[in-house]
């Protein structure tokens, strides 16, 4: 009854002032009342009015996560009481959505042990594909290809393993392999215009294309997928100017340098001339070697790297395609770390190199 009145109050507030804060307040009230679907709907409505609002996005993501956690709890109970393939499949899917590939792998293996067949193998292959696309480790990629081969043998003329193989081969740039799979898919679905277009594109690219092993090695070395480069080209329109953020960070006391890195460009605020260039090069090496080490160690994507020594402290926050770094003379305060997090992943304009 009390929560009902609070919801009414929040709704009235939203009607008078339809701001992102008011949307978030109403969504929160619904969430506290256990109406997660309604909370999600309010968040989505707010995001339509204020696209990209971080508070609403965070709230929406948190509500979704809570829903998934609830469902996972139910599925676990189901699996204890009456384990069956449909429950295993949903469990694995949810675990993959929540980026818990290790638990998804365990679940798929349990499924395979209890109900042997091609479906758990396909799920296991999916787990390794997801893990490879996230970690870019060669071993996960090789395992995914092996499992897909096994699936293809078990599921004769089923397009699902072929589609997964096509996605994986296209992501790593193994064009000859991708073209072979696309032709197999066209045999199953002749005349599909999307597939035909893809096949033509792959035919043009297959000349001199690397083998699967070579392409996997290259992805592990560089940490870049071919699909990343394509996505980066597509998101060119969403670029933002990062300079004000760099300037505000560099203006704080004790900050020696702030660097933003994307592609082969580095924007440096603080040092000038050759020192700026050296700073950018050093930060790039820290990011590159850190990402490579994490891939080799099987720890997945790097989110941040911090170094401390008699030089002060250096913090690097790594996004998917870019990174931000800050060098302070003392210990890095939490507020600066937070600001640095906003720096990575902004897809800033890096058409010009400045120092």
């Amino acid at each position, binding site marked *: 009854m009390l929560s009902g009145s609070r919801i009414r109050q929040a709704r009235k507030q939203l009607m008078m002032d339809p701001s992102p804060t008011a949307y978030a307040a109403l969504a929160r009230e619904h969430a506290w009342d256990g109406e997660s679907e309604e909370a999600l709907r309010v968040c989505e409505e707010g995001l339509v009015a204020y696209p990209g609002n971080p508070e609403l996005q965070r709230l929406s993501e948190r509500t979704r996560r809570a829903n998934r956690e609830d469902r996972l709890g139910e599925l676990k109970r189901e699996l204890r009481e009456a384990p069956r393939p449909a429950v295993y499949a949903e469990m694995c899917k949810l675990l993959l959505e929540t*980026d818990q*590939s*290790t638990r998804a*792998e365990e679940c798929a293996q349990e499924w395979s042990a209890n109900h042997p067949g091609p479906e758990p193998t396909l799920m296991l292959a999916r787990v390794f594909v997801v*893990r490879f696309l*996230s*970690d870019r*480790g060669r*071993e*996960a990629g090789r*395992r995914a290809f092996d499992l897909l081969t096994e699936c293809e043998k078990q599921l004769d003329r089923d397009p699902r393993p072929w589609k997964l193989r096509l996605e994986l081969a296209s992501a790593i740039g193994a064009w000859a392999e991708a073209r072979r799979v696309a032709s197999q898919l066209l045999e199953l679905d002749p005349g599909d215009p999307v597939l035909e277009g893809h096949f033509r594109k792959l035919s043009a690219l297959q000349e001199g294309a690397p083998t699967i092993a070579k392409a996997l090695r290259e992805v592990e070395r560089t940490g870049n997928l071919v699909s990343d480069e394509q996505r980066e080209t597509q998101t060119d329109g969403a670029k933002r100017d990062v300079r004000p953020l760099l300037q505000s960070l560099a203006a704080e006391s004790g900050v020696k340098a702030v660097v933003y890195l994307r592609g082969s460009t580095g924007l440096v605020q603080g040092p000038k001339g050759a020192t700026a260039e*050296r*700073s950018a*090069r*050093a930060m790039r*090496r*820290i990011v590159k*070697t*850190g990402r490579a*080490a*994490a891939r*080799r*160690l*099987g*720890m*997945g*994507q*790097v*989110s*941040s*790297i*911090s*170094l*401390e*020594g*008699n*030089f002060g402290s*250096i913090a690097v926050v790594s996004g998917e395609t870019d990174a931000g770094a800050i*060098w302070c003379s003392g210990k890095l305060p939490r507020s600066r770390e937070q600001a640095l997090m906003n720096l990575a992943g902004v897809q800033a304009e890096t058409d010009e190199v400045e120092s």
Partner: protein
Amino acid sequence: MIEVLDPLASQPGVILAALISDDGVPVAVPGTKVDAAGADGGALGDADALAAMCAGWLDELTESMSLLSCDAPRRVVMRAARGSLLLLRTSGAVLLVVLEPGLGPDELWLPMEGVAARIQRILRGMGEATATDSVSDLEPPSPLPKQADTTPSESPSASLNFGQTGGDPQGN
């Protein structure tokens, strides 16, 4: 060394605690979250590979820092999707801890510094012992073969031996 690392490995959320000596030899102790180690086919399940990779990465970081005219970092933290890697460089060794995802390193620095200090004491003690043992080995070899300490009463037998084997010095 394992006893020294044990308290660190038993901290909540620790997947692995290890010590990498200067010559690259690892001493690893699995933590409380041992199931997560190596589950993703990485090097976390293999202490030798982990030690080699971490030592290699630290060298690369040192090279990167030299571009900024700075010394090698003492503390390194890498947060990643499947956990965090903490490295603490001390003289003669690197202390390494792998944490499960979502845990921060802040609570672990103090025990790590404690372990590092203890390791330093042990290594210093070992170094002193080795130095004492090796003093005689470092002495230059004497130009004549070493003889057992002789007492004055033994000298006649020595001259008698000379007489028996070498014969008369005058050729008789």
